[in-house]
């Protein structure tokens, strides 16, 4: 087999730039996703009409392809709000918004399951001490739920890390887009995509390791 190592080495710095952007997009999107997901996950469980809003959001995001969501944000939002976006929307901003909104819906389901997994006795003990239901959620339920949802949150991070490659479709130069550029320039697609696969693998394996360490550290009081 004719595998050109020198070509691999020369493409690494460019690909690394892409990998850094991939990691950055994913980290920001999942962080925003955790905030959105906590809010919508709680709304989903509330007995107010707000839960229908949460259900609509979650169903829409989980029921449509991420690529379509990215295009809707990238092309649709400037169309809807032409005065705000006279020169269109930056691919970076569109990508972040789309990935965050997408992540929020998946995290909302994770948070909902986490909250529901906490024994009812915890809520009852807190209420019987005179805590409000908000204080009960903040001090008793969420801290326990967050410990339990660290593994599924890790999975969500890994899934989004891989799915974020779809933003290459709006010409944002994350890892996959960089690879397309490099392989077009060098005509050596196999080497380039091989390196790309290794880079994704290193990132996802590192994340899983961090998650299991966190999980072990936080096991006190389970």
């Amino acid at each position: 087999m004719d595998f050109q190592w020198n070509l691999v080495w020369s493409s690494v710095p460019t690909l690394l730039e892409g990998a850094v952007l991939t990691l950055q997009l994913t980290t920001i999107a999942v962080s925003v996703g955790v905030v959105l997901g906590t809010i919508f996950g709680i709304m989903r469980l509330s007995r107010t009409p707000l839960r229908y809003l949460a259900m609509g959001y979650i169903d829409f995001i989980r029921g449509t392809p991420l690529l379509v969501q990215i295009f809707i944000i990238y092309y649709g939002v400037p169309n809807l709000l032409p005065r705000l976006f006279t020169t269109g929307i930056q691919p970076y901003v569109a990508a972040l918004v789309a990935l965050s909104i997408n992540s929020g819906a998946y995290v909302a389901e994770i948070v909902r399951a986490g909250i529901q997994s906490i024994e009812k006795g915890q809520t009852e003990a807190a209420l019987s001490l005179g805590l409000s239901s908000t204080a009960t959620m903040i001090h008793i339920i969420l801290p326990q739920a967050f410990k339990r949802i660290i593994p599924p949150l890790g999975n969500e991070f890994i899934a989004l890390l891989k799915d974020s490659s779809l933003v290459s479709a709006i010409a944002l130069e994350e890892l996959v887009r960089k690879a397309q550029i490099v392989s077009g320039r060098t005509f050596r697609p196999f080497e380039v995509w091989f390196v790309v696969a290794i880079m994704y693998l290193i990132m996802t394996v590192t994340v899983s390791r961090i998650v299991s360490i966190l999980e072990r550290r936080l096991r006190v009081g389970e």
Partner: protein
Amino acid sequence: MAIIEVTNLHKKFKDLHVLKGITTTIKQGEVVVVIGPSGSGKSTFLRCLNFLELPTSGEIKFEGNLITHRNLQLVRREMGMVFQRFNLFPHMKVVDNITLAPKLVRKTEPAIAESQAHALLERVGLSDKADAYPEQLSGGQQQRVAIARALAMRPKVMLFDEPTSALDPEMIGEVLDVMKSLAADGMTMIVVTHEMGFAREVADRVIFLDDGLLVEENSPDQLFSAPQHPRTQSFLSKIL
């Protein structure tokens, strides 16, 4: 003086009619033990008193005021509750379990809440466990912490729902001892339990619930030695 007045309390879960009109008055400083067969509605009765279960109809007054959604939180902080399964907060140290509600609800200064917590731990015989997590304690120790946690709110009434039923036999005594000392200090207590020895020794009054009805109530001496109602007689013949 009456502290809790229950009038014609009904509770239904969908089609299941669990409490079928309970009327009784709990006096200040009284220790009332509630007995009855499993499924007779003892827990539901206790949980209606602090509205963990919403009564279907009837009235509950606390210190003369009707309990409603508006004053519910105010009433709950005056009624401590101890559960069969302890329900300590597993993510918090023992001391934080005890100080949480005083700090959040009563706005007690953290330093004061903490010194109160240590005093309460001493009272239940666990001064050395302040920094432990609940999972590091035995069942009997957890239940004593749960009692200390409820007492930290300085409640006027304590509700106990089978506080020793989940415990290994050798740990029952340590929990009952704490409850006896509370009773001796004049705490108003409503206790669901199968510990008839405790009822005899401590209760001012025993209530027998059967099938959602308050069948009979009397002093422990009277009720245990001369039950009036055939259902009480049959229940007591099975357990005594």
